[in-house]
């Protein structure tokens, strides 16, 4: 049974998927945010790290699952564990550095020490001061029960009854492959992780990367004018597609083989010596032609992992209250890329989609201003239009799987909010069974 009310409001009043109308209070209301933490984030597959961020035994990386700090650690047997970054004694943060290699994690408060598997291995003065019924085995760091990978990307889920990651991705996996399986060697991260704060609700960022090719022509016009002026101010003449997942994922792209490897050149102002865009395209074409044709792809894996494949920027929108996010972004490169290809991609990524990038600043400006507008009482109750593509039939695509549509559309956005609403309406106890039944 789904709840009819969310924080005292009728569910259909918050989002009406048939009408394509959003109530902006979903971006601003603190109670709705608290319910998102419990009903969306605490039972969704959340991105943790790339496998190659932690290749060796004891390699760890400290990150977050929504607001919960967690540590992901490579184990002796090659597997990966994720546990809450919280000491079981008084709740102090266990691991206080961003990444590294560890044999143990020792709390800085009373020096309780945990192994790389999260088990409690040492308690100072245990024999002298704790009672006979104290057992370290009962007080290990809290494990995230489900940890699964898809082609190098590690995800974790607090819900031990959640459907497997691969099943949750469903047909969206094909579109992840356009990034992750475009070249025979797969991907690896370029070193370095950007972290910055944007005062906006997480759903603005997640929705835009899921569904919004529309804004690029207008919001990014000055960045386009500065780099590829022949394209400025015009919707792309290339054929475009958008995919809507039944579980909130979404992506959009143009169909143009070799476009991305060329596009990286004007973004840096020049080709890096030795960079051969045609050779990149030929390698991708030989590996998988239909994925090589996917260009300037934006995508969100519900709820808060997104990428833009034009420069392979991947990011998590960590929620920080209804009006703020921390963006954690890195860049993926083909593991079989040449040195010049890596450098071309690195430069293009940090000059376009990074905190000081010419495109990134346009997006942040929009989201911040929207959030500021929503401080207004009347603004918070003025419905927003998400009707683009509604009532239009664009048909299916012979090449690309799933519910596929025109690139200029808000079908994927409606899909994201529809799935969000379903999770928000699903009581926590009944959730496990509901998820298990909702297979492909």
């Amino acid at each position, binding site marked *: 049974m789904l709840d009819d009310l969310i924080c005292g409001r009728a569910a259909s009043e918050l989002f009406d998927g048939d009408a394509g109308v959003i109530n902006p209070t979903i971006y601003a209301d603190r109670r709705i945010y608290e319910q998102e933490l419990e009903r969306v984030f605490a039972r969704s597959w959340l991105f943790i790290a790339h496998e190659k961020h932690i290749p060796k035994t004891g390699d760890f990386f400290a990150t977050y699952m929504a607001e919960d700090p967690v540590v992901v650690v490579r184990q002796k047997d090659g597997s990966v564990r994720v546990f809450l970054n919280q000491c079981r004694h008084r709740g102090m943060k266990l691991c*206080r*550095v*961003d*990444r*590294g290699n560890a044999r143990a994690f020792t709390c800085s408060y009373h020096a309780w020490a945990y192994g790389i598997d999260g088990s409690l291995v040492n308690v100072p003065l245990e024999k002298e001061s704790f009672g006979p019924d104290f057992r370290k085995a009962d007080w290990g760091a809290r494990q995230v029960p489900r940890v699964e990978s898809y082609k190098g990307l590690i995800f974790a889920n607090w819900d031990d009854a959640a459907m497997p990651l691969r099943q949750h991705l469903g047909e969206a996996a094909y579109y992840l492959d356009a990034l992750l399986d475009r070249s025979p060697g797969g991907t690896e991260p*370029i*070193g*370095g*992780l*950007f972290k910055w704060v944007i005062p906006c609700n997480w759903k603005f960022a997640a929705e835009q990367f899921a569904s919004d090719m529309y804004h690029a022509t*207008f919001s990014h*016009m*000055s*960045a386009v*004018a*500065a*780099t590829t002026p022949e394209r*400025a*101010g015009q919707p792309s003449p290339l054929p475009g597609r958008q995919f809507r997942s039944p579980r909130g994922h979404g992506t959009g792209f143009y169909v143009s083989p070799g476009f991305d490897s060329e596009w990286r050149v004007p973004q840096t*102002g*020049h080709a890096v010596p030795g960079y051969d865009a045609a050779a990149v395209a030929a390698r991708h074409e030989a590996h998988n032609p239909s994925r090589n044709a996917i260009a300037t792809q934006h995508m969100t894996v519900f709820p808060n992992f997104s990428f833009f494949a034009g420069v392979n920027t991947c990011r998590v929108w960590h929620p920080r209250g209804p009006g703020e996010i921390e963006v954690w972004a*890195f*860049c993926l490169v083909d593991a079989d890329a040449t040195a010049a290809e*890596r*450098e071309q991609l*690195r*430069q293009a*990524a*940090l*000059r376009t989609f*990074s*905190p*000081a990038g*010419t495109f990134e600043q346009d997006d942040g*400006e929009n989201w911040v*201003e929207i959030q500021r507008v929503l401080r207004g009482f009347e603004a918070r109750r003025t419905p927003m239009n998400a009707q683009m593509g509604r009532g239009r039939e664009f048909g299916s695509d012979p090449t690309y799987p799933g519910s596929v549509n025109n690139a200029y559309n808000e079908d994927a956005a409606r899909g994201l909010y529809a799935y969000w609403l379903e999770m928000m309406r699903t009581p926590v106890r009944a959730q496990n069974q509901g998820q298990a039944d909702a297979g492909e």
Partner: protein
Amino acid sequence: MPVNSQQTAEPILPAASADELHAISQFLYHEAELLDAHRIAEWIELMADDLTYVMPICENQGPRDRHQQWSSPNELAYYDEGKEHLRLRLRKLESARHGRRSRNRGRAI
């Protein structure tokens, strides 16, 4: 570039005479006036042609790994660019669409 704390402490700049310090401060005022007046193209032309500017990413590292707290030259950085990118950023600022956004914002505030 990041300062390596392992190195012995030496002055970052050689000693300058009072006249040189005066010339440097006047140059900084000149830069500030050009930027305040939005004469950005003229400001860019004050830069050396082989200018590069880098702002690496800093990570929170323990004492053992402090040597790798800054991202290295082949890794991501907030800025890692030169004069041609200053010109690119100026082209963005000067494009008609960007100006319209800025003016709209100015009126709203």
